């Protein structure tokens, strides 16, 4: 060989074998042009798409009003249903016309203000406003109702304080509990932060579990694993480089989306240690690789291993707290999700990036993830050894 002056790390045979095998895996991976092209799409474009413009909060809900009163009061009330929550789509002459717009999905909220609205309020009487909400999307419907109640309640209180104030000669103070919120970690409630981080986690998960698993089974399916088995490599030396190679690739992808999209475009802060973040991503990728490994030793061909891992991974992606709040899940499912490495990684990832926490606070999550990873990896390795040794 030509390496007359080996670097110290390559001196031992063990390390050199590892290095050669990792290089082999990387070369094999980079020859799959479609996969590599897609790798860039996923870590860059997908993350960008997820972070730009999608919002789970109530925004831009179409509002159509039937105003039978047409006075200052009714107009003031309508005016209080304002963007970004509501989008005023105009008045209708008849309630049925408003309901039809809801049927066709053009609007979400239909407000019906009765006649003599202004008059009754001046007299100090009571009146009722109807709000019909298309609840095909239930969270949005509930939000619309809660905002509506808040707006109408405040309006009513303003009207009555004005009336009461004038009758008690001004300076009226009422015993109310004011809500004073401080939102931490994402004070402007910028949803692109949440969405883009969640998307990076999703993509990382998919690649981390599928790349090593398929690489392992492919070798077996094609029979090239026999060549490796007759070589002086141990089962660990065959398997471990695959995981290392895939981890390097995924870390590169994470770096791309972190610096290019999250910091570059969405201004997501990195409050904690960048080094810790990458260290934790590495641990996570290893853990998921362990899962892929277990699947690979159970499945007998690539098709099976792909289906099996996706069967497990899709629920993990959707239920670990990346897209929906996990607290509302039924207890059995919440406890089941403690087994999902992503559940812990979500805590770690948001913790480091947005909360700036370190190991002193995150250690329970890190420990759980490491334990899961160790168990999966150990089990996978044990099965792999039994199959080939």
């Amino acid at each position, binding site marked *: 060989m030509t390496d007359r002056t080996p670097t110290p790390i390559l001196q031992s045979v063990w390390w050199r074998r590892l290095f050669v095998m990792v290089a082999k895996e990387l070369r094999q991976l980079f020859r799959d042009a*479609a996969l590599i092209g897609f790798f860039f799409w996923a870590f860059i474009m997908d993350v960008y798409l997820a972070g*730009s413009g*999608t919002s789970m*909060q109530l925004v831009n809900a179409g509002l159509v009003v039937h105003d039978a009163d047409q006075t200052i009061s009714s107009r003031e009330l309508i005016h209080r249903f304002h963007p970004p929550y509501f989008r005023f789509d105009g008045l209708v002459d008849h309630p049925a016309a408003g309901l039809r717009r809801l*049927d066709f*999905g053009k609007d*979400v909220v239909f407000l019906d203000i009765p006649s003599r609205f202004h008059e009754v309020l001046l007299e*100090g*009487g009571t*009146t*009722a*406003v109807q709000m*019909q*909400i*298309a*609840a095909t*999307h*239930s*969270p*949005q419907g*509930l939000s619309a109702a809660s*905002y509506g*109640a808040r707006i109408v*309640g405040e309006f009513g209180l303003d*009207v009555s304080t004005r009336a*009461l104030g004038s009758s008690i000669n001004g300076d009226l*103070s*009422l*015993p*109310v*509990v004011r*809500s004073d919120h*401080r*939102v*931490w970690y*994402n004070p402007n*409630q*910028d*949803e692109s932060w949440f969405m883009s981080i969640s*998307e990076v986690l999703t993509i990382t998960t998919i690649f981390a579990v*599928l790349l090593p698993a*398929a690489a392992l089974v492919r070798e077996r*399916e094609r029979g090239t694993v026999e060549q490796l088995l007759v070589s002086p490599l141990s089962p660990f030396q065959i398997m471990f480089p695959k995981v290392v190679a895939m981890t390097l690739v995924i870390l590169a992808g994470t770096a791309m989306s972190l610096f290019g999209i999250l910091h570059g475009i969405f201004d997501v802060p990195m409050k904690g240690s960048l080094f810790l973040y990458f260290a934790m991503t590495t641990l996570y990728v290893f853990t998921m690789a362990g899962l892929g490994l277990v699947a690979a030793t159970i*499945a007998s061909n*690539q*098709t*099976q291993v*792909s*289906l099996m891992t*996706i*069967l497990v991974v*899709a629920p993990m992606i959707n*239920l670990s*707290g990346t*897209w929906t*709040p996990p607290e*509302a*899940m039924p207890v059995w*499912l919440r406890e089941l999700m403690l087994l999902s490495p992503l559940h812990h990684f979500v805590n770690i990832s948001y*913790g480091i990036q947005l909360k700036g926490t370190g190991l002193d606070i995150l250690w329970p999550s890190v420990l759980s993830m490491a334990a899961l990873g160790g168990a999966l990896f150990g089990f996978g390795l044990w099965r792999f050894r039994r199959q080939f040794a």
Partner: protein
Amino acid sequence: MNVRRVAAVASKEWRETVRDRMFLALAFLIPMLWMLVFGYGMVLDVENIPYAVVDRDQSALSRDYLYRFQQSRYFDFQGTLSDEREAAPLLAASRIRAAIIIPEKFQERLLAGQPVGVQTLVDGTFPLRSDITKGYVIAINTAFSTELVVAHVARIKGVTHDRARELVQPIKLEVRYLYNQEVKSAWTIAPALVMFVLALAPPLLTALGVVREKERGSIYNIYSSTVSRLEFLIGKLAPYVAISAFNIVILWLMAVYLFGAPFKGNGLFFYAAALLFVFITTGQGLIVSLLVATQQAAAIITVVLSIVPTILYGGLLVPVSALGPETKVIAHLFPAMYFTNIVHGTFLKGVGIEVLWPEVLVLLVYATALLSIGYWLFRKRPAL
């Protein structure tokens, strides 16, 4: 086109599928299991928010106030802290998502008829959750304040409680929910999950099924046979479409009977539309499989291509009407959104083709386009 040759390819494909027991089992199990866990787990309701309190007042009124949070199913009481500073590490560790801090003189000021501010610290990492949490806090505050104000007004104006209530709340808001009267998240999610599962499972099966042949090299048998391109594609896709056609029924049954979603529309129309959607997603899988060389790539690409657009732009979590102008354009580029409209229309609104024909038309265009592209991409003499 020779029907016998199509049948031969289809039966070969079917036999291969049936012989791979695990593949066959997974083809039926995946949609069912996903529907099951997603139906229970993908709830957008924000409930059981873990919170802690700091009560600096320790009075009867502050306890009465805090009791309302304990009573609420939206909040999950985690404990009382002696100091505000203790809240920070708990929030950082995600042990609590909110902290309520009651100031000194809470009772004194309120009884004197003065306003008082209660501070809430909210974990803002998940904006949907923090926004709804804020809403709940405001609702509890409003209810609590109204009672105090009513009592206060009754006292200073010397009127009855009922009259004071009328003075304080002159406008009542009557809310009626259409299509989903009880505003159940399951009614929204379960039908949309039919869409989600059909967007994910069929292309996966198809892509793997086709690439499998390419990767193993058995596709050369086809290249050298008399089977034409079209015959091969129809025969090859038929078993996968058949599996999905069966799965549609299972998914529908689960949505209606397990998750209690109402089905108000025409079942036949729904089935036809769902089948059309399956053709589209199968076509997606076909195109992916023709462009890649390995099953590994096929699986990853299909999953990423299916999951992201359907979750974010398909109307599953985010209603398309709530998207911004640019993202709305993107949403219209993916077929998922149109099928979600059909699903919600037939399940919840009870409307049929008379309202949903534009959606059906778009899906037809997609199906034709995707299958044509698949046909055009498939070469019996690949340039490899």
